Every structure is written in C-alpha cells, then in structure tokens.
C-alpha cells in the first residue's frame, strides 16, 4: 500500500497496547550493558538508602530511559510493517519503576494531519505499572513514507 493508503486507514482513537515488561536485576543489567548507563541508582542498594534532595527510593530503580525503547517498540511493531517511520517521541517520567514492577506502554492515535509533503499521525503515550499508576506520559509522531529517508541514494 502507498503511504496515502496507509494514512487513510488510520483511525483517530485507535489504541495500540504494547507488550508488558517486568523489571528484574537482570533486565537492569542488560539495559546498562546495552546503553552503558551504569549509574549506581540502578545497582547499588546501599547507595539507594541515601536521600536525594527530599526524595528517597526504596531500593534500586529501573533506568528511566528503559521506558524509551519500550515505547518505541510499541510504535514500531505497528509502524514498520505499514511503512510508518517513527519520527518523534516526547516523554516525561512521573514515577520510579522498581524491581518486580510490570509496566505496559499504550499508544493512542490522537490526530492525523496531511501536510504539503507528508502523511503524519500523532499518538498520546502512557506507561502504567501493575497498580495502574502512570509512570510515564508523552506523545509521539510518525510519518507514512513511500521511501525511507537515506535509502534513495543507496
């Protein structure tokens, strides 16, 4: 299908529910080994007994940026097979995610817009934990394309 056809099939209000993710010391280690973010916030139980400004944490926390690929994956699982290009992701982390917590990203189509040269869709993003608490919010933007940027010259 063309970018125009994919765009036309998109419906505002539709919801993409991402795969759930449970945080363990192993997932934290794997994220650190991949991202090279070895901040003691994610590893050092003794260090986490400290007070951070007025904030205290009950033990180590997941990297906030772990939310990012989980949200991206939710979007690209849907977008890539449809010729959609993940263009933008804006997030705020609202709540720390702790060991044993399970988080689930959800992307809701919030708007679509055809411009002079593009077919754009917008998403509202939320990530909730096992108790239904919001741990992250945000929004994202994708573009349906007939040619992926950088491939025409290849």
């Amino acid at each position: 299908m063309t970018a125009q056809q994919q765009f036309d099939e998109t419906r505002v209000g539709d919801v993409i529910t991402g795969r759930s993710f449970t945080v363990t010391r192993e997932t934290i280690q794997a994220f650190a080994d991949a991202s090279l973010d070895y901040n003691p916030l994610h590893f050092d139980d003794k260090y986490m007994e400290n007070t951070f400004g007025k904030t205290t944490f009950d033990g180590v926390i997941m990297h906030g940026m772990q939310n990012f690929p989980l949200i991206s994956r939710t979007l690209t699982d849907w977008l890539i097979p449809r010729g959609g290009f993940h263009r933008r992701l804006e997030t705020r982390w609202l709540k720390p995610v702790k060991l044993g917590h399970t988080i689930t990203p959800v992307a809701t189509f919030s708007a679509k817009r055809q411009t002079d040269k593009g077919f754009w869709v917008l998403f509202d993003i939320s990530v909730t934990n096992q108790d239904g608490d919001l741990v992250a919010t945000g929004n994202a933007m994708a573009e349906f394309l007939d040619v992926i940027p950088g491939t025409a010259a290849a």
Partner: protein
Amino acid sequence: MTVLDLDDFETDFWKDVEKRKTWDEIIPGELRDTTPVTLTKEVIARFAAGVGEDNPIYFDEDYAKTTPYGGIIAPPSIHILLMFACTTTEDWMRSPGTINAGQNWSYHFPIRPGDTITMRGTALDRFIRKDRLFAVHENTFTNQHGQIVCTGRGQTIRPQ
C-alpha cells in the same frame, strides 16, 4: 574515530566524579567533550537485545534486506548508548544520582552498521523547581555523510 567496543568502557561511574561539572558549574551553551564512534552490527544487535528491541530488522540482515529499509538499522533509541559512548568519564551525565526526568527526540535518518556518529552536546538551561536542581541538555547526532540522524533534548535532576 573509534570503533565502539561495548566491553571496553569504564563502568565505575564514581571514577573521575570529582572532575565532573556540578549543577553550579554547568554553563548553558558550553559544548561537552565528545568523540565520534563507529557502530558495528554486533553493537547494534547487542543494544537491541539489551533494551528489549526484538524486531529482526535490528540484527537479521537477510530479513532486513526484504524491508523498505534495505538492510539492518539501529533501534531509534540507540542515542541512549551514543550519549555515553561519545562522551568521556568526566562528562556530567555520568554523575551518580543523575535522575532523568524526561526526553524529547526527533528521528531524521536511520542509523546503520558502519555509520560513524558524531555528537554535539550542550546544556541549554538550568533551573530550580520544588527544591530540585534541573539541567536541560540538547544533543545532536550526525553521521559520516553530514546528515543529522537524530536530535534530542532532555531534563535531568542533578545530584546535590
């Protein structure tokens, strides 16, 4: 230019801690010290596996060739790795207790194996809110063709 080796990285974030800029010393507009890195297929595959990005377009060349991307690409969020890979042990983003408050990223071109990526990083702003010390940073990543592959901005709460 350095071929990025994930196994050759200082994982002790306390090392050089006294050399890193504190909130008071971060000057908006001042460039962070960065070095370009070249990404291999192996690094892209390990990044993808480590962060949970399991689409075979990130590690299976035969499959990736059948897609409109024409070959393996890196997951969009690889800027997370690039930020640490391109900066030094003295970079303030490594300071223990740095808490990420949220990020905005725009993606312009896919990053591919063999790409050499250059980072330009600055602080844009500092502020105090609810007794916390915030820094706003902005990073731009450019490939060997001079294409800006992704740009991002984020906020961190600085350790006190």
